[in-house]
């Protein structure tokens, strides 16, 4: 009875609403049925090659056999197959570190999280690169797929953070020259596409350095992403700085705190805790933006997927490949955005 009353109130109140519900319901049901029919009923789960798979599905279903054959390449790219367990541990380690960092009980002091990340990053670097403890060396051009995506987003964001704090403070500084430099940097970087910054990093960075200094492609992309994220994060942090009541600054001044003490002990802790939900949103955007490194020739998760569908034996299974990769991105981004929402709600209270 309750369900009927609910349906009447929410779906069938009025002629117009009833028509809308019926039409939308029909379209959704049809779409869902097509997806199930394609993805499950007519799908082929195992086949030796693309032609055999097409013969099974009769082109009416998904060829998940493609994912079965290619998931290792999509996830880890050209990382030596025998060593891929190392890349897998790194992925699990990264996810674990992110999950642990979300626990608010750890936030009372900056040290636990910093320690976790420093140790975690050193361990991941050793695992990825090898060369010690009997692990064979894996050069950075073979760091592909999901580990690369995670590495790029985490390290670029971590590197951008200190710069972003300086820029945000600089933008609100009383010193006109410092303010002008900060505003100039932030507005310039935010006004241009992120790809142009990546191009700059990949083409111009080698020119900026003294002759004979060669820098890794991975580092170039990292520097580019870092410079871009710094400007984006700076604007979010500035929002937090602006939200702090002037009384806080005045109280700190009255207590005789120096500028450094005031910033470190009074201003930043408050500004950063207000900005955590929008910061998480910036992290999501940054995570999605790492896909652009494909344009400067790095093999991230999206590049490995788009390369896998050009294999002559398995040509053209782009929907399967992209659904697989999109699901991975979605899980990461959606859980981060849920987390940001829950934080927002808990701070509203």
């Amino acid at each position, binding site marked *: 009875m309750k369900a009927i009353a609910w349906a009447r109130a929410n*779906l069938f109140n009025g002629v117009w609403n009833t028509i809308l519900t019926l039409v939308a319901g029909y379209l959704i049901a049809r779409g869902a049925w097509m997806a199930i029919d394609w993805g499950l009923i007519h799908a082929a789960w195992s086949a030796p090659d693309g032609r055999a798979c097409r013969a099974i599905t009769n082109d009416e279903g998904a060829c998940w056999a493609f994912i079965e054959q290619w998931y290792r390449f999509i996830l880890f790219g050209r990382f030596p197959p025998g060593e891929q367990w190392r890349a897998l541990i790194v992925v699990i380690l990264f996810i674990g570190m992110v999950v642990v960092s979300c626990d608010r009980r750890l936030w009372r002091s900056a040290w636990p999280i910093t320690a976790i990340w420093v140790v975690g990053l050193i361990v991941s670097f050793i695992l990825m690169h090898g060369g010690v403890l009997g692990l064979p060396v894996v050069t950075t051009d073979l760091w592909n797929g999901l580990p690369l995506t995670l590495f790029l987003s985490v390290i670029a964001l971590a590197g951008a953070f200190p710069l972003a704090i300086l820029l945000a403070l600089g933008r609100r500084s009383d*010193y006109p020259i410092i303010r002008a*430099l900060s505003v100039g940097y932030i507005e310039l970087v935010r006004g241009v*596409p992120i790809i142009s910054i990546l191009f700059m990093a990949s*083409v111009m960075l080698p020119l*900026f350095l003294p002759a004979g200094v060669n820098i890794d492609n991975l580092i170039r992309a990292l520097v580019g992403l870092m410079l871009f994220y710094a400007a984006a994060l700076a604007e979010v942090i500035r929002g937090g700085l602006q939200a702090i009541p002037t009384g806080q600054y005045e109280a700190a001044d009255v207590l005789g705190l120096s500028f450094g003490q005031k910033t470190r002990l009074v201003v930043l802790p408050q500004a950063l805790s207000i900005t955590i939900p929008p910061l998480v949103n910036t992290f999501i955007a940054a995570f*999605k933006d790492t896909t652009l490194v*494909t344009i400067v020739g790095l093999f991230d998760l999206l590049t490995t997927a788009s390369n896998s569908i050009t294999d002559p034996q398995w040509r053209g299974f782009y*929907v399967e490949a992209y659904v697989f990769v999109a699901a991975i991105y*979605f899980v990461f981004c959606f859980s981060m955005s849920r987390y940001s929402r829950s934080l927002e709600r808990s701070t509203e209270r």
Partner: protein
Amino acid sequence: MTAKLRILLPQLLVLAIVVGLGAYLIHNTLDNLARQGVATGFAYLDREAAFEIGEKLIPYTSADSYGRALLVGLANTLEVGVLGCILATILGLIVGVARMSRNWLIRHIAALYIQAIRNVPLLLQLFVWWDLFRVSAPPPRQAWQIMPGFFLSNRGLTIPLPSFEGGFHWDIPHLAGFNFAGGHIVTPEFAALLIGLVIYTAAFIAEIVRAGIEGVSKGQTEAALALGLKPRQALFLIVLPQARRIILPPLITDYQALIKNSSLAVAIGFPELMAITNTTLNNTGQAIEAISLMMIIYLGLSLITSALLNWYNARLALKGMAR
């Protein structure tokens, strides 16, 4: 005196560091360029480009200059940008209003759209749209005819164009050999870019629209309903006009994002500003000039977008309210 010095000194120090770093980088760059024998300066813009551009709004041949090629790219960027902003606004408005619908199903379909689109990278979405046209659409000989003159094939979508040569008539696309002739062809690259940008940006605009509608006090809707307006009239005549004031500032950011995101076209081969710049710097080696020029143009586009919308925003602002 010491107080003044204390204000001035840190600033000069920072300035000195920035200038010093800049000078060091420029010195290295000039050194490197001289060693590689690359000429500096913008003289390359007058040289013959010698590459073809598939899609152009202004006349261009490979005999034209790099400068001209850049203009062709800029025109393509503007085309995608303007069309994209208009279509994304319309779609975003629809989804945003649907997100607030009293109909449970409609509300949740809109929420699903927003969540699915916002949490998947734009470049991935562009790749899917591109392959949908290139791989899944039939070859021209088996093209799907949507309406007379509108053929969808892996070469793109054909559209009839009005023609005034020898009296007015419609220039209707028709199959000629292995491709279509006549009318206008929307290439898979252009279609993928435009559709991808519109669908992606609309998901963000929808959230802005929702916040804008929520930002208008509920009393306004109640007053409108009490006056005997229908819910739809209340939405279009009372709520949305007021919501515009809340919607517009964040909308500017999304328009700028759409224009900047159109640069992803370089990955799917639509010849806009970024793609032309990429080709130019590969052909000439004039990386610094080409990249700076492109950055200045994008910066200019961002500024123009925000200036136009700020002007409109100022007109919308309540009279007598302090800004």
